[in-house]
């Protein structure tokens, strides 16, 4: 009898049920989309902020002071200490190796270049552009192309040679200001000592590199005779914004706290792990990038969190208003059932079961629609999809049930309070 009542109610009141279902489905898709976007925004904005460059710098511990004015390194290559290049892939062996997004080593020297008999002095910078490397079984590609995505090249990026290239000039990039000063463009040839270079492209970085010649690291090592040496390395790591705990000195923490500190991807703990992996280096967080990114990130995610909460509340109100409206209109049915001898419990059970079924169906439809919307938002704005965690389905369905019950319960109570006789006569 109960099932029949339930079934008939859905069969006979198609239009009314469809509208209520629509309201529930719309509410849950709002909830799904906003939860997904709100949860995914942190990673997406973090990735955007990462494009502002490296956040850790690795330098030799025994180094002399840097002599750098206006982005031009004036320290002779013969001075100071070096890091050995073969140690660098070890960074991919630390605890937070997945958070090391990339690194780029640098070796610099002031050199004299000759173009068509005219000679000029400029900084020669050796680095990785997109160097394939391997550590253990893992192979990866790293270099300035991924670490400094704001570098723009007109022409082509040079290949990363393993050493001095055989039978052909080594390809290099010219800084844009240097190129403008000496009238160089892509395809031109240069000499350095007795060796030949070919300009493959003009690079614009907005920094000191615009006044330099950029060459693959192994070419520069060959020119300066510093095999396996680099001067400094910048690392781009995915980090958790610094909080009070991150600033604690790990040596003064209790063993349990130290483990927790070590196993959180703070810039400081990743720096410590790099120090442990590579001998004789100091690792500093580049505070300009690291400190400020955390602030921007927490503001953006905080705002999305608040908007998500507001949207959830709005969706909940909309859904319970819709449920209440459908039940309030059915007072006559309630009156009829009661006058035929149905108990309050029986009537309430019927209505709440109807509401529950609608919440389940509407929740499922809403989840599908909301997921599609979150994907679409991620794809159009960030160019990568926002994934929706399956647990969101459970959360959304439970919330839909709860909200529907709350909305229905209030309305059912109200409907039950009327005297059946009054309702049936239409006086209420």
């Amino acid at each position, binding site marked *: 009898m109960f099932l029949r009542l339930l079934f008939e109610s859905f069969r006979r009141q198609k*239009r*009314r049920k469809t*509208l*209520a279902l*629509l309201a529930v489905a*719309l*509410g849950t*898709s709002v909830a799904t*989309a*906003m939860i997904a976007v709100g949860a995914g925004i942190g990673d*997406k*904005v973090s990735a*955007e*902020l990462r*494009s*502002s*460059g490296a956040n850790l*710098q690795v*330098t030799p511990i025994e180094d*002399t*002071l*840097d*002599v*750098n*004015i*206006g982005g031009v390194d*004036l320290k002779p290559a013969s001075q100071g200490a070096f890091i050995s290049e073969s140690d660098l892939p070890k960074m991919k062996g630390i605890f937070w190796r997945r958070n090391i997004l990339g690194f780029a080593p640098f070796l610099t020297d002031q050199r004299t270049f000759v173009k068509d008999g005219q000679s000029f002095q400029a900084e020669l910078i050796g680095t990785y552009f997109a160097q394939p490397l391997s550590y253990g079984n893992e192979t990866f590609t790293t270099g300035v192309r991924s670490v400094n995505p*704001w570098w723009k090249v007109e022409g082509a990026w040079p290949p990363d040679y393993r050493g001095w290239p055989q039978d052909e000039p080594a390809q290099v990039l010219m800084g844009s200001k240097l190129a403008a000063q000496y009238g160089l463009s892509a395809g031109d040839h240069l000499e350095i000592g007795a060796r030949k270079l070919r300009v493959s492209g003009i690079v*614009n970085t*907005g*920094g000191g590199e615009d006044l330099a010649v950029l060459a693959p690291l192994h070419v520069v090592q060959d020119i300066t005779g510093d095999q396996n040496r680099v001067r400094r390395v910048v690392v781009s790591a995915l980090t958790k914004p610094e909080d009070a705990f991150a600033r604690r000195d790990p040596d003064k923490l209790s063993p349990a706290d130290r483990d927790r500190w070590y196993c959180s991807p703070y810039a400081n703990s990743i720096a410590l792990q790099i120090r442990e992996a590579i001998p004789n280096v100091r690792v*500093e967080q*580049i*505070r*300009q990038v690291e*400190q*400020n990114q955390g*602030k*921007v990130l927490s*503001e953006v995610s*905080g*705002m*999305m969190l*608040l*908007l998500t909460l*507001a*949207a959830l509340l*709005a*969706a909940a*109100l*909309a859904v319970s*208003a*819709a449920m*209440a*409206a459908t039940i*309030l*209109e059915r007072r006559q049915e309630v009156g009829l059932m009661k006058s035929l001898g149905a108990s309050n419990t029986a009537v309430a059970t019927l209505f709440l079961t109807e509401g529950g079924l609608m919440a389940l169906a509407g929740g499922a439809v809403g989840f599908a629609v909301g997921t599609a919307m979150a994907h679409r*938002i991620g794809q*159009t*704005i960030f160019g990568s999809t926002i994934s929706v965690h399956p647990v969101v389905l459970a959360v959304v369905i439970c919330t839909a049930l709860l909200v529907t019950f709350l909305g229905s319960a209030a309305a059912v109570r109200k409907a039950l309070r009327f005297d059946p006789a009054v309702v049936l006569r239409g006086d209420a």
Partner: protein
Amino acid sequence: MSRFRLFLRLLVKAAWVRKDRALTALVSVGVVATMATAALTVYSDLENKLSGEFRSFGANVVITSHRGALTRAEIDQIRAVVANRGVAIPVAYAIALGPNNAKVVVGGTDLRSLRDLNAWWSIRDTNPSAGGALIGARAAEQFTPTGKAFDITFGANSLQIRPQAVYVSGLEEDDSRIYLDQAAFTALTGVDPNYALVRVEGRPTDIQHAIDQLSARLPDVEVDPVRQITETEAAVVGKTRSLVLASSAVVVILIMLSMAATFTSSVLEQRKDFAVMKALGASNRAVLFLFASEAALLALAGAVPGFLAGSGLAYWIGRVNFHAAILPQPALLIPVLVGSVVLALLASTAPLRLLDEIRPAAILRGE
């Protein structure tokens, strides 16, 4: 009783007798108006609020003079363009010799402004009294591990450096420097500033505008945006704005539809009233007008508190998240009100067309 009074009575009584129906309609309109107001208010102020955060990244434009020092007139021009939307700090650099003849880059500038500009520096005050020098962490480690005074020489001149504070920036080149007060620096080296670190505040378009103005007014010097910072700012601010816009649009449209569904079903339930009125001789137009006015009245009554609640919500989001109020936008009031009324009219009159075809007698008999 005049027609008008009858009409008013019908309108008010309809809402009063079925208070709960009116209430659900009010709630759903109010929710839509609240969400729309809050989302649009936050969106309209977002660019300012987020751009403000990028202020702490420091200088976003560097001005370099390759023909000696920046002239007084040039510095004045820079300050005039930046005006009260940022700061411009002239800086001079020279290479001096520290103890043990180690080369060190010495900068001369206004120390107070430099510290404000580079707010991310972690500073250890060793001697906060006025005067002295700002010393990079690596330079301090090398020259004065205990914070004692030491001498630097430039040509024939020498100067005793009393460390005022030690800073850590994390960049090797920054941490290897010593900054002196401009007067002390000029006395030591005789060099005047040929760089200016400029921070232009505002939205990405404002910054670009300032850069264009600087380049136009100062043809003899180089004006370089720090692309690393300006491009990240533009990307993050732009994408966050689109995100807020897209997700608010999704929320508002879906909740609007949900509200329309509630409205429509409520009107459908009033078939009987519709039939009675028609049976009593009301024209289709009169009935439609009555239903439409009821919907419009409810929409207005829901949208006004919705607008207030939405403005409050936006203000609160600003306070909690950005530590600065997001002020209500009175200009949004009219669109929100009109939008709610139009939506309610559509949602309530569309189903009446369906009913139009049904004969009152059939409805009244319950068929």
